[in-house]
């Protein structure tokens, strides 16, 4: 593969590129779903190709092709240079790349069981067992389950001497029970909504999730929601479970810290950010308890944002994002690092596949757990009146990442430290910095889970990327609840 990549680098440099890198990527995925006792879909897919990214005349060009023959590869490289020269016609200044030493490296996602080694019939049997448990509960009208496995092998070679071979595995699984009755559709999902839990692991993740063991409880909760009262509207203390908090981190911390957004590069699609450069190390983002990191290292855990090297050859790193409530760091790349006075990239550039341009993506953006021992039950016991909300149902935030609104699948009204009653259709809304400033309790490490978000969209053409978010259940004081159902 190195030889194929070198064909590209040679042509690019011969045609005048001042920098070039080539990525050859081989992707394999398996997706299995069931619906109401039947296999819904069963598919395998493979995709392989190469992209060439070049700087010529101080501007970027990028070309990708499925054709890995020598003429095909050299044509891609020549096309990339031609595109860069066209880019240079509309530029204000030359692209500057932060220095990065070329490295030769191998990296593979630590995994115990290759997910593709597990017989498909065993996977389908597991999903149908879950389905059977869900539909054993009277009232369930629709049961859906899913299993997903991915393997991505990449060879990265650059004109600065990098030669990195990296193989990443990820797995995901989950299910949802729907109950339609009267004029109402309610649902409950496990371990999370919209595809369940995802991590950079092998099949061992599926065994850890205890899918069957939780199915009946989840189905019973979906049925019970039809008898629950509407979540009250007003200002309440709220407790978010760790999966909902993971998405809250993703939307109201992860996206606004992307330096390309901050610099206006995403203004036409994903939007910009309220975190203008003057806010670095000056903005109080949250309460003193809020400590958030962007950590791509394996020691942080097997998140979807864990890797050895990013897609421009920079090692995975840990960047403090919020330190004791103070905003302290952005997600950066070699091109953008200098805008925040950094001499080196934060190592966050990733691409969806061989045919996409790498861009700044969240790694694992995690809220660190509380240092004092605190379980969810203890947190509930210390809450006089509030709403516990679990499992995301809807999410929305403005294009600068200020105003958000989230809905959850299920809520529990807490009175005098106890779960007093189940409530349906809970939602909350607020302004990002006001919300994080209201945080007054975070559960400790035992309750902390590194969640995977497999469907983060960004860029034009849009790319879908997996990101990681560690969180423990936390409490927020004085939050607006229930606007979602207020006026419609």
């Amino acid at each position: 593969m190195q030889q194929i990549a070198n064909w590209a680098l040679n042509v690019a440099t011969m045609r005048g590129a001042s920098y070039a890198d080539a990525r050859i990527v081989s992707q394999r995925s398996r997706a299995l779903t069931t619906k109401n006792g039947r296999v819904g879909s069963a598919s395998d897919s493979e995709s392989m190709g190469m992209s060439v990214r070049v700087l010529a005349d101080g501007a970027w060009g990028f070309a990708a092709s499925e054709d890995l023959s020598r003429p095909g590869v050299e044509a891609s490289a020549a096309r990339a240079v031609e595109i860069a020269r066209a880019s240079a016609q509309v530029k204000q200044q030359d692209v500057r790349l932060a220095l990065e030493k070329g490295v030769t490296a191998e990296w593979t996602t630590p995994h115990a069981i290759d997910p593709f080694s597990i017989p498909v019939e065993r996977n389908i049997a597991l999903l149908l067992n879950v389905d059977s448990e869900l539909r054993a509960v009277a009232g369930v009208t629709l049961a859906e389950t899913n299993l997903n496995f991915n393997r991505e092998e990449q060879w990265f070679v650059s004109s600065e001497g990098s030669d990195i071979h990296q193989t990443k595995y990820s797995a995901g699984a989950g299910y949802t029970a729907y109950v339609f009755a009267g004029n109402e559709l309610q649902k409950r999902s496990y371990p999370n909504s919209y595809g369940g839990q995802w991590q950079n692991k092998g099949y061992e993740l599926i065994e850890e999730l205890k899918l069957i063991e939780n199915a009946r409880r989840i189905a019973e909760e979906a049925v019970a929601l039809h008898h629950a009262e509407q979540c009250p509207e007003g200002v309440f203390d709220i407790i978010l479970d760790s999966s909902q908090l993971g998405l809250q981190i993703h939307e109201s911390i992860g996206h606004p810290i992307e330096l390309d957004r901050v610099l206006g590069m995403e203004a036409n699609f994903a939007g910009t950010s309220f975190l203008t450069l003057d806010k670095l190390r000056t903005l109080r983002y949250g309460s003193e308890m809020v400590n958030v990191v962007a950590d791509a290292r394996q020691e942080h855990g097997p998140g979807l944002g864990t890797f050895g090297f990013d897609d421009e050859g920079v090692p995975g790193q840990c960047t403090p994002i919020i330190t004791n409530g103070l905003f302290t760091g952005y997600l950066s790349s070699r091109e953008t690092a200098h805008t925040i006075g950094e001499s080196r990239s934060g190592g966050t550039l990733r691409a969806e596949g061989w045919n996409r341009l790498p861009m700044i993506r969240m790694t694992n953006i995690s809220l660190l757990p509380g240092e004092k021992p605190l379980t969810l039950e203890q947190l509930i016991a210390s809450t006089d009146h509030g709403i516990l909300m679990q499992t995301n149902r809807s999410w929305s935030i403005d294009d600068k990442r200020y105003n958000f609104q989230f809905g959850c699948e299920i809520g529990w009204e807490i009175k005098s430290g106890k779960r007093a009653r189940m409530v349906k259709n809970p939602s909350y809304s607020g302004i990002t910095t006001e919300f994080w400033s209201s945080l007054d309790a975070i559960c400790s490490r035992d309750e902390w889970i590194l969640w995977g978000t497999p469907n983060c969209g960004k860029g034009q053409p849009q790319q879908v990327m997996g990101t990681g978010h560690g969180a423990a259940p936390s409490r927020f004081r004085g939050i607006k609840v229930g606007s979602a159902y207020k006026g419609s």
Partner: protein
Amino acid sequence: MLTRDQARDIFDRIRKLSSADEVEVLFSGGKFALTRFANNTIHQNVAEENHTVSVRTVFGGRTARASTNRFDDDSLRRVVASSESLAKLQHPDPDLLPMPDSQEAEGTGASLVSTRPSPSRYFEQTAAITPQLRAEGVKKIVDVARRHKLTTAGIVSRAESVEGIFNSRGLSAWHTQTLAEISITMLATDSSGWQKANSPDVANLDPLVLAEAAAKKAIESANPQEIPAGKYTVILEPAAVLDIVGFMFWDYSGMAILDQRSFLTGRIGTQLFGENITIWDDVTHPLQTGSPFDGEGVRRQRLPLVENGVVKRVVYARATAERMKRSEHKDKVGPIAATGHGFALPNEMGEMACNIVFATPQNPQTVAAMIASTERGVLVTRLWYIREVDPFEKILTGMTRDGTFLVENGRVRGGVRNFRFNQSLIHMLSNVEAMSVPQRSCGEESFDMVAPAMKVCDFSFTEATKF
């Protein structure tokens, strides 16, 4: 780009490699290039060529699919083996139908619906757009931004794509298309404006017109004032209309009714929207794009989904139609027949109405006329980050973006801070006071459609943001 003859050759090779009862091969892909600009600079500029072959095999009612983008003998052998081994592990699906032949796919049987030929959607002048031409287009847009002392961001792109299907019962269908697209955001200190357009024929796009319109919005929405959240008369430009209404068309599906996840469950045949709302699914409309056949090769039919506010029917894949005919819902869902809207099999979603065309209203009004007749309201350019709050009442939440204006006494009074809405689509489409002539529209929250601007009363804004 892959040709039909090359695809047929690949299909023939795959057939020889397979021992399945039936074989179906889908082809997709093409050439795509996009120039992206921000801060008045081209900062990303990409080109891609890729084609995928996707093989579905059937053994005694069991089916599965495998895909690859490698067409050499070893890769084709592997993708066939993968599809076959996955298929053999399935339980037989009693609803799986034999693959359609050409006659069935063309809808020449007893059809309840109408067809007409799709216009050609491949234009050489779009396919011929070079990086140089894209850069020249960007330069024109940047020049407009500079003249108005604004900063611009956006894209200029071109695509050349193929979609094809062959099956072992002799069906073959092939579609080629081009698409040129321009999207522009103009940014001022505390405001922004946006425009987007696409067309198979690049001659229909004018970067200067779009850039000037986006710049005007950015300039006129400067110094936005905060007005309180509440119920307002809104004037939604066509992009905002498609952004929000697009969220309901997943529910115009026989499978969604069978699954009891559609908001139309129990509501087909009822007066759900205002009498001025009529909506077609019509891939043959001259302003539509896309292939004229579905994931099984069945020709897409032209259907009335909503007539004068009454939901008339939903769309069907072949198997869904047969299931519906046997279901408890069969007498409450209108006409039941395969309509050519199925996804590639196997899938769990069935089908979707995705060629949406709003009918021209009896007395169409321009946006300017809607503004002139509004005592107090809000003019909305586009919507953003829309998600479903309640699936049966079809309450959606989202934000306004890139050009939100206060209208008072028949005039635009300037920009306002962006709002969050929580709005039932059912109520919204029951409160439409005026519509423009529908036009080809595109946004970021939903698929392209032929949609009008709408003036809607009692639209629910629940919060305002900080800008």
